[in-house]
C-alpha cells in the first residue's frame, strides 16, 4: 500500500494519485489540507523503529504494509482555515506536522522525499559545493557584499546573472545597468552572482535510478517566467551523456532525494552545467510537454516494483552531512 500525503487541490499530488490509480497500485491519501482532522493516528516507537496505524474516514493503514510514501507539504494557503484562536491553532498545526515529519523520517520504506534531503536547497552556494562533489560542473559563482568585487566580477565575465542565495525570491535575472546602479546596496547584505552560461536549459528528473531529461528552448533568462516577458518555450525529451546522467544520480543520492528535479544548461560546447536541485519538483509541466513517463516511474518506485536507488531509511541524513558513498 502506498501513502500519499498532500492536498488534492495541488496539481502534482493530483497527478500522482491519478497515476497510481491508472497503474492499479493501491494507495491512501492523507489530505494535508485537513490533517490531522478526520484522521486517527497511532504511531509507536520502540528500539525496532516505528509501528502502528493511520486511519482515514473509511480506511486504516498499517505502517508495516507501506511500500512507499509520496509527500508534498502544503503552505498555509493550502490548509483549511483554522478553527478557534488562530495563534493556538497555528501552534497545534505545527505540532501535528512535526509528528508527521518525524514519522516519515523514521520509516524504512522509500519516502519521496524525506525533508532532510531538501534542506540544501535553502542555500544555493552550499548546494553548489555538494553538486560539484557529485561530479557536476557548476557555474562560476560569487557571493559577496562588496560592490567593488561584484563590479570586477562583471568586468571579468561580461554577462552576469544574479539570483538569491537562499530559497526565497528565487528568480534569475541578468545584471543590467539598472542593477549595477544598485550595487552599492550590497553593503547591507550579500547577493549571489553567476557568470551567464549560454545554451539550452535541460531539466532532469531522477526517479530512483531512472533519468528523464528535457531540453527547454526559449529566449528568456529564466524559462519558468518566460510568459512574463511574452516569450515562447519549447520542450523536447533528450538523452544525457552517460557521465552527466551518472553525476545527476550521484547528486540525488548525495542529497538523499529519491525524486529530484535538477536544472542543467547544455552549453554550445556540449558541456553541462548544473544550477540547482529541486527536492520537490513540480514535474507536470515537463511530463505534459514531452510525454515522458515521469509519474509512472514514480508510481513504480512507490509500489516497490522498481528498486529504490539506494537502501531506504537513511533518515539520519536529516541530522548529518551527506556522505560520499
Amino acid at each position: 500500500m502506498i501513502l500519499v500525503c498532500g492536498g488534492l487541490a495541488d496539481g502534482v499530488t493530483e497527478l500522482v494519485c491519478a497515476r497510481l490509480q491508472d497503474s492499479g497500485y493501491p494507495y491512501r491519501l492523507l489530505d494535508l489540507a485537513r490533517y490531522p482532522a478526520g484522521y486517527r493516528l497511532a504511531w509507536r516507537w520502540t528500539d525496532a523503529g516505528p509501528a502502528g496505524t493511520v486511519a482515514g474516514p473509511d480506511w486504516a493503514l498499517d505502517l508495516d504494509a507501506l511500500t512507499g510514501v509520496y509527500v508534498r507539504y502544503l503552505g498555509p494557503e493550502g490548509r483549511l482555515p483554522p478553527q478557534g484562536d488562530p495563534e493556538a491553532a497555528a501552534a497545534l498545526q505545527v505540532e501535528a506536522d512535526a509528528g508527521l515529519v518525524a514519522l516519515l523520517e523514521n520509516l524504512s520504506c522509500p519516502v519521496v522525499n524525506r525533508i532532510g534531503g531538501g534542506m540544501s536547497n535553502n542555500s544555493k552556494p552550499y548546494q553548489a559545493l555538494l553538486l560539484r562533489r557529485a561530479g557536476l560542473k557548476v557555474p562560476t559563482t560569487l557571493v559577496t557584499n562588496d560592490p567593488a568585487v561584484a563590479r570586477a566580477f562583471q568586468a571579468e565575465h561580461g554577462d552576469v546573472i544574479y539570483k538569491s542565495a537562499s530559497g526565497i525570491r528565487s528568480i534569475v535575472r541578468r545584471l543590467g545597468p539598472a542593477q549595477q546602479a544598485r550595487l552599492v546596496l550590497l553593503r547591507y547584505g550579500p547577493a549571489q552572482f553567476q557568470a551567464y552560461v549560454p545554451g539550452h536549459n535541460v531539466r532532469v528528473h531522477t526517479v530512483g535510478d531512472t533519468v528523464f531529461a528535457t531540453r527547454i528552448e526559449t529566449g528568456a533568462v529564466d524559462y519558468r517566467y518566460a510568459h512574463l516577458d511574452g516569450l515562447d518555450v519549447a520542450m523536447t525529451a533528450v538523452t544525457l551523456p552517460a557521465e552527466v546522467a551518472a553525476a545527476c544520480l550521484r547528486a540525488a543520492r548525495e542529497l538523499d532525494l529519491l525524486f529530484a528535479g535538477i536544472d542543467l544548461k547544455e552549453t554550445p560546447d556540449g558541456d553541462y552545467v548544473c544550477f540547482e536541485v529541486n527536492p520537490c519538483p513540480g514535474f507536470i509541466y515537463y511530463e505534459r510537454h514531452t510525454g515522458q513517463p515521469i509519474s509512472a516511474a514514480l508510481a513504480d518506485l512507490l509500489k516497490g516494483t522498481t528498486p529504490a536507488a539506494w537502501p531506504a531509511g537513511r533518515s539520519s541524513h536529516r541530522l548529518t552531512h551527506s556522505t560520499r558513498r
Partner: protein
Amino acid sequence: MSAKPARSHRRRAMAGAPGNSNEDALAEPTDLGIARRVRDSRTRPVHLLLGDPADSCCAGVRARLAARGLPAHIVASPLAPPARLVWRLADGGLSSRLELGDDAAEIAGVLVRGTARFDPAGWEPADHTYMHAEMLAATLAWLTALRCPVVNRPSAALWYGGRASLLTWRPLLRRCGLHVPEQLITNDPAEAHAFRRRLAADGVAGAVYTPLTGEAGYLVATDAAWNGLADLQERSPVCLSEPHGAAHPACIVGGEVIWDDDSPPENRELASRLRQLAVATRLDFLEVAIAPFRRGLGVVTVEPVPVLEHFAAPTRARILDALTSLLLAPFAPEPEAMR
C-alpha cells in the same frame, strides 16, 4: 604561552591552509601560490565564536583564547555590516574571505553555536526576512568550505532544521547501539490509555507528554491530567514518552566524553557509543542526557548546541578546555565539501 599558537598558525599557513582566505589546493599548486599565502598570513589571526555574546560557552572559550594571547570575536550575525564577504566558486576551485571590519584578520578557527537576525531597523519586514535568509545561506556556504578548524560545522539539515526532537534522533541513536525510551504519537485517547496501561503493568506510573516543538516535558499521572490530554488530542496528536529516572548529561568534545563527577559508573560504560554518535552526527561538540528507564539505560535528550549550565562547575571548565584545544587543532587537510 602565547608564542606557540602564533608559531603554529604560521606553520599552517606555510603548509598552504590559511584560515580566513580559503583556496583549493588545486588552484595554485605552485611556489608562487604558497608565497602569496605566506604574505596573506601576516594579518592578525583571530578566532570567531558564532553565537550570542551572553552565551557562557562563547565567553569561556574567548577567555581561554585570550589567556593564550589569541584574540577572538563573539559574533551573532557574521555577515552584517561592516563585514565583507567574498566567496567565489569557479572551475579552478573555491576561494573565500570574510573580513569582520576594517581590521583585516585571518580567521584561525570558528566555534558554531548559533546565529541571530541582524538589526531590523530601517528594513521592511519582508525585506528583512529575505536578507536574513540570504545571510544564513551565505554563512552556511562559507562555513562549509572553511579550512580552519570549525567546531560543529553544520549540515544544511542542522542549520535549517531547528531544534530536533528525540524522535528525529532515534534512527541514529539506534544505529549507534543507544536505547531510547518508548514513545507514542497519537490523537486517539484510547491509544494513549493503552500506553498508560502498558507502562502501569511494568510498574511505571504515568507518561511524559512532550510537545515535539518544545523542550519541556509534562508528567501525565492523574486522571484529571489524562482527561486534559484527551481534550488536547481532539485538536492535535500528542507525543508521549515512557518516564525515566534521573538524567545525567554527558558532553562529547572531539573524541573525549566528559561527565560530571557524580555520573553513575554504568552511564560511563556508554562512552564508546556516545563517541560513535558524535562521529555519526559529524558534530565535534554534542550533549547527550542518559537516564534509566524500564529496559535499562537510554538517551533522553540530544543537544547539538550543548548548554554549559547543565554541567557542574568543574565539568564546565574541562569542557571549555577541550573546546579551546579543538579550535587550536591543526587544520583539516580538506573539508568534506571540498573533496
